[in-house]
């Protein structure tokens, strides 16, 4: 993982130019978005309680931009979350009101990261144990069993059966309530939106393309679209200064539709 991070620690552009199968394989080393995030935090030696969200979000985007887009939904959801936190970090100070009760927008993320880190720690223990066990073999030969009756004397009692009935009744599935239909992302549609916007404006911001009360699938679709278009060189994603919202600019060298 270390060499991945050094290769990728650069900007979005660096990651883009080097993108392809290699990184898809490398990214498979991360077991999920939290793993990737934790790796970034470790590599950068960042205090987990005070994460520079803007920087981490940028690096996170840089790494996932090399993912094959259709495999990246979980990562993109996290990316969207980071961007949202980043935006929230800017809000309350302006309103100036209630500084004491200001809730760090990163708190939930920190909680999840700590929880996840705990899981990783248990994984280390499990890995050691399993390695130890894998090196030993149990008896493989199974002797011809002496012919025994299919079942020995059976002990079951009515109370046992009735408590099983009771369990079944408790467990019985309610009639079918609903089916969860995975909402397909509409990346092509989102690409159309972004292109249309950039056709009339040289630069835009995230909030310009995002509908009010956007649903998660819309956010993800747009994010995918941006990454895809950035990869194709049709636009650039720029963050003018720290903590600023990133800007989407038409890339003059590219051919916008």
């Amino acid at each position: 993982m270390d060499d991945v991070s050094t290769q990728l620690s650069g900007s979005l552009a660096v990651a883009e130019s080097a993108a392809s199968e290699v990184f898809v394989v490398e990214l498979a080393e991360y077991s999920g978005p939290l793993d990737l995030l934790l790796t970034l935090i470790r590599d950068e030696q960042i205090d987990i309680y005070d994460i520079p969200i803007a920087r981490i979000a940028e690096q996170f985007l840089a790494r996932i931009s090399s993912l094959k887009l259709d495999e990246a939904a979980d990562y993109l959801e996290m990316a969207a979350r980071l961007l949202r936190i980043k935006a929230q970090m800017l809000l309350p100070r302006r309103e100036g009101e209630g500084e004491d009760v200001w809730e760090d927008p990163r708190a939930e993320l920190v909680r999840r990261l700590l929880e996840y880190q705990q899981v990783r720690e248990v994984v280390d223990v499990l890995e050691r144990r399993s390695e130890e066990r894998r090196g030993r073999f149990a008896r493989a030969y199974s002797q011809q069993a002496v012919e025994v009756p299919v079942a020995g004397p059976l002990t079951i009692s009515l109370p046992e059966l009735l408590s099983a009935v009771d369990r079944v009744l408790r467990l019985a599935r309610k009639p079918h309530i609903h089916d969860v239909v995975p909402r397909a992302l509409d990346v092509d549609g989102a690409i159309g939106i972004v292109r249309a916007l950039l056709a009339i404006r040289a630069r835009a911001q995230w909030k310009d393309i995002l509908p009010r009360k956007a649903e998660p699938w819309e956010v993800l679709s747009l994010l995918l679209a941006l990454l895809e278009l950035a990869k194709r060189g049709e636009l650039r994603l720029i963050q003018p200064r720290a903590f600023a919202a990133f800007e989407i600019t038409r890339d003059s060298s590219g051919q916008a539709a």
Partner: protein
Amino acid sequence: MTPLAKLLEAALFASATPIAVDDLRAIAAHADEGETTLEAALEELRTHYDTDGHGVELVEVAGGWQILTRPEYTEAIERAQLAARPQRLSAAALETLAIIAYRQPVGRAEIEEIRGVGAGAILKSLHERGLIDIVGRGEGLGRPLMYGTTPSFLEQFALRHLEELPRADELAIALRAPRPPTPAAVAATKDNGEAPPRAD
């Protein structure tokens, strides 16, 4: 024991089949455990098991070698396990049996739907134990097998007939919503004479 004898013991233990002499020789050659010859090491292992009082022995079979438990123990173990430990039904098996008792005749799909897990292996084992039987075929796709309880089931629970089972509404929680009417064809094929406790 010499290093080679220990290595051979581990190898013979881990192998699912007897190991041919040639293969044993290859293991020994690769391990390069000094002077001991394969024959000497095998002899050492065999003697160790025999004289030191072990529950296992080294036997030569079909051009190879194998460690086997001594016959006098094999049977003792099986018998002991069987006699001392009357078999119990797993919670999953009991639940399946409960569903069949109350809803017979009932097909596998319905059982699985209620319990949320596959029921194939459990149905097989309940059938082998003689607690349930196939009582007909249901309507619908593939004419599924329908199961019911057997007289031996009643005997097992010291019941004279199925009506002796408490009605579902006497149990802690009422039975779930009524299901579609049972296919009459199936009900007719029930051969052990017991009516289900409730049509529900």
